[in-house]
């Protein structure tokens, strides 16, 4: 198991390199750069910027160097100094921005993951053992509705509902009176209150799919002979269900954690933008719009890293859960 894990960790290096190239290339694709954006926004506010002054700004930020050289400077700093560069727009190091926003993004995403599992797995199990019941039909309907509704629309609808019926604004991270207040227990409670809706909304996206998968898998497993064996042994239904078919049916869900994470992160970005929560999502959007390339490329890089780690974790969990997956074959 240890050799396998180490091997997988080493495999991360080339993958991350490829991702860094792709991420940087995409950010560089549109014509122009941050200096152009900066100069045009200065001009838009009425400031006269002369051509040689514009050139000086470009020179100063190093935008005149070839793409490869700029890419290498960015990568070199990350590898040797752990420095993701500088954000022109925020006027501070990228590391600082990420350190500030990333924990909230991770927290939201994992909170959402837990919520969607905690809802979907029991509902899926119940639907399967009460197939074609009213409950099953109800959650099939809700599940498909959830699958079909884009998360940002849900966010808008819920924000409006809360405001309309509870006279409560879920937008932002804090209520107005706490925004500038120093950290206190009350502020923490306020933060949690504001995070509940986004966590639920992000979580609900995956819920529909997991309910369907869990229900389908379990229905297949319930027909297997080993379930009949367990019943013949005299086990109680509940014990039998949880020990055998549910254990089997849950494996495919574990193996898709890796795919679920990018979806949750994408959803997190949209929902955070709609609800005005300052996670990495809105920052990524703004940095792409203003061509703040180091910031944008770094965020893409970090989100990719999280996704890869997610699939590594799901692979390891699967190896641990299913004795039929053998290390000898994996390490060959």
């Amino acid at each position: 198991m240890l050799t396998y894990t180490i091997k997988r960790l080493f495999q991360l290096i080339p993958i991350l390199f490829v991702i860094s190239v792709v991420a940087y290339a995409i950010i560089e694709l549109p014509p122009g750069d941050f200096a152009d954006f900066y100069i045009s926004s200065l001009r838009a506010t009425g400031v006269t910027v002369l051509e040689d002054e514009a050139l000086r700004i470009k020179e100063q930020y190093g935008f005149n160097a070839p793409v490869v050289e700029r890419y290498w400077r960015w990568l070199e700093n990350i590898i040797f100094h752990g420095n993701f560069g500088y954000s022109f727009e925020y006027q501070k190091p990228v590391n600082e921005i990420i350190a500030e926003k990333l924990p909230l993004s991770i927290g939201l995403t994992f909170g959402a993951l837990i919520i969607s599992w905690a809802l979907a797995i029991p509902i899926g199990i119940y639907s399967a053992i009460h197939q074609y019941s009213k409950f099953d039909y109800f959650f099939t309907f809700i599940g498909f509705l959830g699958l079909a509704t884009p998360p940002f629309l849900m966010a808008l609808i819920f924000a409006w509902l809360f405001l309309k019926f509870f006279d409560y604004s879920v937008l932002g991270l804090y209520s107005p009176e706490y925004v500038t207040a120093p950290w206190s227990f009350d502020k923490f409670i306020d933060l949690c209150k504001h995070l509940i809706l986004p966590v639920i909304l992000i979580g609900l996206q995956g819920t529909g799919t997991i309910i369907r998968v869990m229900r389908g898998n379990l229905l297949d497993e319930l027909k297997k002979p080993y379930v009949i064996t367990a019943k013949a042994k005299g086990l109680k239904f509940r014990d039998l269900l949880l020990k055998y078919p549910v254990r089997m049916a849950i494996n495919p869900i574990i193996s898709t954690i890796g795919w679920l994470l990018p979806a949750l992160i994408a959803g997190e970005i949209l929902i955070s933008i709609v609800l005005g929560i300052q996670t990495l999502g809105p920052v990524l959007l703004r940095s792409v719009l203003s061509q703040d390339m180091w910031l944008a490329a770094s965020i893409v890089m970090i989100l990719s890293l999280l996704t890869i780690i997610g699939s590594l974790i799901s692979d390891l969990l699967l190896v641990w859960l299913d004795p039929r997956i053998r290390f000898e074959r994996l390490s060959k």
Partner: protein
Amino acid sequence: MQRILEVKDLSINFYLREGVVHALTDVNFEVFENETLGVIGESGSGKSVTVQSILGILSQPPAKIVSGSIRFEPESRNLELNLLPTYGDTYRNVRWNDISMIFQEPMSSFSPLHSIGDQISEALTLHRPELSETDVLSVCLGLLEKVGIPSPAMFFKRYPHEFSGGMRQRAMIAMALVCNPKILIADEPTTALDVTIEAQILELLESIKSEFNMSMIYISHDLAVIGEISDRILVMYLGRVVESGVADEVIDNPLHPYTRALLKSIPKIDQPIESLDPIEGSIPSPFEVHTGCPFYSRCTERLGEICLRQKPAHKTYNNGHKVSCHLHA
């Protein structure tokens, strides 16, 4: 001999989307202490449904016991199994503790995610909670050794996919014995195995049966095997018992055309293969409802109108040989 199980007029239907399947119709038989009852029939004759209904492991729905009774009466107890709630304590305590079962497919009948040891010891821990962990382990290891597994302690920790079919079936037999049941049901235990392994497993089952003082219900579609292992034989066709009696009597003096046809289709070592007589046609659709004899369409000895129109009655001879056929009315 003391009777231990009585199945009386048992009829079971499966209510499926495609229609109603009459899986069992008026099935009657008894199992006595320390005897082996052989049940023979083609696929779809209702052999498995019969034994699964005894253990209460049929999925209900779609299955439903329409009429009849299953009475389990060991020593002082007298339980009407068909009236007990499936997952009630009484029925659960009968399962594996009093009646256990060896399944057809040793691979799929074990969970692939749990070790063999976990699955073997499970029933023992469940039905004998007073036993300590060490006692449970020693009982299980002893049984594994008895069924011919070379290094039981190593085997105990391994998973089903790591062994051959024969080994898995031995483990299944050991698992069926953990609670020292009164009746052991073997549902085609050798169908998925090689012929050489089949002989070993049969031998093992016979020796174990007498050592543990159990009754056994042995299901097979192979009359040669059934004739070898059984004290009494039950011949089933399309959910009905068409003939039953003492093994030698049924084999030497078969009364029902179906049993005769089955006997003719067994290859014999001293006869050329051309003399084999397969039964013409195949089992009718399970959705078909028969007003007369269910074997009518394939019977070579049918009498005509009466066989098509009228259900044959059960006729019992003095030696206990029973048959359900208009030839013996």
